[in-house]
């Protein structure tokens, strides 16, 4: 008997491989037994990442002219989601069947993080769909520079221009050309749990000092003062963003972000210092660095945290039926910081999500019309669903059912004088990644506010 131990191990591997390949044959056989399932599996192989795909085109009606198929990709992957943007998107997808009967829209939704990767891959391979969801400003700039997206100037009528609310096109405009239509204005505000404030006899803050007093009071009472999911990095950007807006003012901070001014200003150093001090006094609880955004939202929803500084997409979560805090949340303007240049009417947020048209599309006019239709329709519906502010003028009809917090935010922002868009979307790519890591370092206390600003300034040099 002659054998080596290794031979046996190899034998084990070979037999495993055989079992796997047999299993592979088995599934193929059962697939070919019925034509339908074979087709299904072929589709599944062709688009393994699509988590929600549906063919929403209307059936060809005689006399309706030629049917055109428009492919559409979005990050709205779940048709059953209660997120306001998802609801609005699927509404638009449904109504486009009747409103544009000659266009057959084939939609493919992919979850946000995978969506970004999928889009990049499609761009590298020149396989973009006709219309696709995208973020504006810095995220979109490389696509425009590479000539991958179509300008909407040719298709935008004066009627449309009249309906689009002022400033909402800024993040989609490059060299004076508009590349996308807006569909929402998302605004960040300070969400406060009024019940916890009352129970602990804390005044809802109107000044930054009162804000710090509230932080200390909740900290002493063992309640997380501000819920922050810093594990995902971008929530920290919003905290620094609003401090920078309050200290430097929206105009100056925008100039620094666009590389037209320096980050090395006393105001921004002071903003960084305040964020660091806020973290050091336990403003974000003990475990912000290891908390994901989902967990941070859950903690706020369950009434375990007193405040959260977040975008208006949080409205739906706060008013959801399963939220312990339903009806107890109020939104306020982030307090003004004494000595800062910013006012209470300058906001963090803006309009920055859109649908773009690929420059390779075979039907540019129809694709542009589809993008425009979805954006205008979503603008109204996502507002009614309690997500963001509308970006198009529209008759809102009966707003009595509207999310209470959305109405409060609409009131807060009606006199807005300036906006700074989300820092990561605004800067895009490596600059966004650097910003996020620098702010995480700042919050963790790994660098001084001066070092922080100097490191940010390297982005502008």
């Amino acid at each position, binding site marked *: 008997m002659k054998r080596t131990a290794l031979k046996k*191990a190899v034998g084990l591997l070979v037999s495993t491989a055989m079992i796997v390949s047999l299993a592979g044959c088995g599934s193929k056989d059962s697939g070919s037994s019925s034509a339908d399932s074979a087709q299904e599996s072929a589709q599944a192989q062709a688009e393994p990442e699509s988590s929600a795909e549906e063919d929403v085109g209307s059936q060809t009606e005689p006399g309706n002219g030629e049917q055109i198929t428009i492919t559409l990709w979005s990050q709205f992957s779940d048709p059953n989601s209660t997120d306001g943007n998802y609801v609005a998107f699927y509404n638009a997808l449904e109504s486009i069947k009747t409103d544009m009967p000659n266009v057959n829209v084939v939609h493919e939704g992919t979850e946000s993080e995978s969506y970004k990767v999928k889009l990049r891959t499609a761009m590298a391979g020149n396989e973009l769909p006709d219309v696709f969801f995208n973020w504006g400003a810095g995220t979109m700039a490389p696509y425009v520079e590479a000539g991958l997206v179509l300008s909407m100037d040719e298709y935008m009528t004066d009627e449309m221009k009249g309906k689009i609310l002022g400033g909402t096109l800024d993040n989609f405009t490059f060299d004076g050309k508009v590349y996308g239509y807006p569909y929402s204005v998302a605004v960040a505000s300070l969400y406060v749990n009024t019940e916890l404030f009352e129970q602990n006899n804390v005044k809802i803050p109107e000044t930054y000092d009162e804000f710090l007093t509230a932080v200390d009071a909740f900290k002493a009472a063992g309640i997380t003062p501000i819920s922050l999911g810093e594990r995902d990095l971008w929530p920290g950007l919003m905290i620094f963003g609003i401090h920078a807006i309050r200290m430097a003012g929206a105009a100056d901070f925008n100039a620094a972000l666009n590389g037209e001014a320096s980050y090395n200003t006393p105001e921004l150093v002071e903003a960084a210092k305040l964020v660091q001090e806020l973290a050091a006094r336990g403003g974000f609880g003990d475990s912000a660095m290891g908390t994901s955004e989902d967990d941070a939202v859950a903690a706020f929803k369950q009434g375990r945290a007193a405040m959260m500084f977040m975008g208006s997409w949080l409205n739906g979560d706060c008013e959801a039926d399963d939220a312990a805090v339903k009806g107890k949340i109020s939104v306020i303007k982030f307090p003004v910081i004494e000595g800062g240049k910013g006012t209470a009417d300058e906001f963090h947020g803006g309009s920055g999500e859109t649908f773009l048209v690929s420059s390779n599309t075979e039907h540019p006019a129809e694709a542009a019309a589809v993008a425009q239709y979805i954006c205008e329709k979503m603008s109204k519906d996502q507002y009614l669903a309690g997500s963001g502010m509308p970006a198009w003028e529209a008759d809102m009809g009966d707003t009595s059912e509207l999310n209470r917090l959305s109405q409060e935010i609409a009131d807060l922002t009606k006199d807005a004088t300036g906006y700074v868009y989300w820092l990561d979307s605004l800067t895009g790519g490596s600059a966004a990644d650097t910003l996020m890591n620098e702010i995480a370092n700042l919050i963790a206390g790994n660098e001084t506010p001066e070092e922080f600003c100097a490191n940010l300034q390297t982005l502008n040099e």
Partner: protein
Amino acid sequence: MDKILGNKKAYFIFVFPAFVVYFIMAFIPIIISGYYSTLEWNGIGEKLFVGFDNFIALTKNDAFMSSVKNSLILAVASIIGQLIPAMFLAIILSRNIKGEGIYRTVYFIPVLLSTVVIGQLFLKIYNADYGALNAFFGLFGLKGQDWLGNTKLVLGAAFFPIIWQYIGYHMLILYTGIKGVPAEIYEAAQIDGANESQMAFQITIPLIKSTMKVSLTFAVIGSLKLFDLIWVLTKGGPLHASEVPSTLMYTTIFTRMEYGSGSAIAVFIVAECLLFYFLIEKFFKVDNITY
């Protein structure tokens, strides 16, 4: 049989299909990555040839250096934390103990679970607010920790499930090797009065060196190219404290849009794995034992 094995044409026919698949799926991407690593490129715009600048920049990149350090720590921790317990279990299981099959299956279960499942499980265990680990410490009145949020604790916390998961895998490889040692040798040793530990150290371990080398190679290479569990648990954070080269490669390419720099990390990972493979081959010489 000898006729087939002696026929070079038969060799070619059997090997060729696998070679083609391997060449297209593994070899070409590595070569393309090598080309990308010499570019400054955001994936869609213009490609700018920069030679070895990406590699030079990596040596000055703190996040990259700490990611390499972390992966080497993991490799050492895997050798100690996986191979020693795996060897111990394999030796015991192979001694025809009662319930051998059940134990073998139980220890192998973590290997069968998807890493994402294990990652989610440990995310819940480590959670600072409601995690099982902090609840356990709470029982003794100890203060809980933010296991995955503390830069000093995160490495240990993230490596534990990685090491734990594959103990069963190495146990099975070593167990197979031990089962290949003929029973007569042990019988002879027993007649000579050898006890269990003498048999383990004098017979089993020397005779399964070639299997141990397989295990060692898998443990080291697996640690150097690890991605999935770290990604699920921490995404390399906080502050790059649990970064390994492959997670850094992913964020460099898909978050920072630096295809050149990310490809340079990919090339580094390939080179590092090959280097360690050859080192193990060179310093872990094994005689081909036949019984």
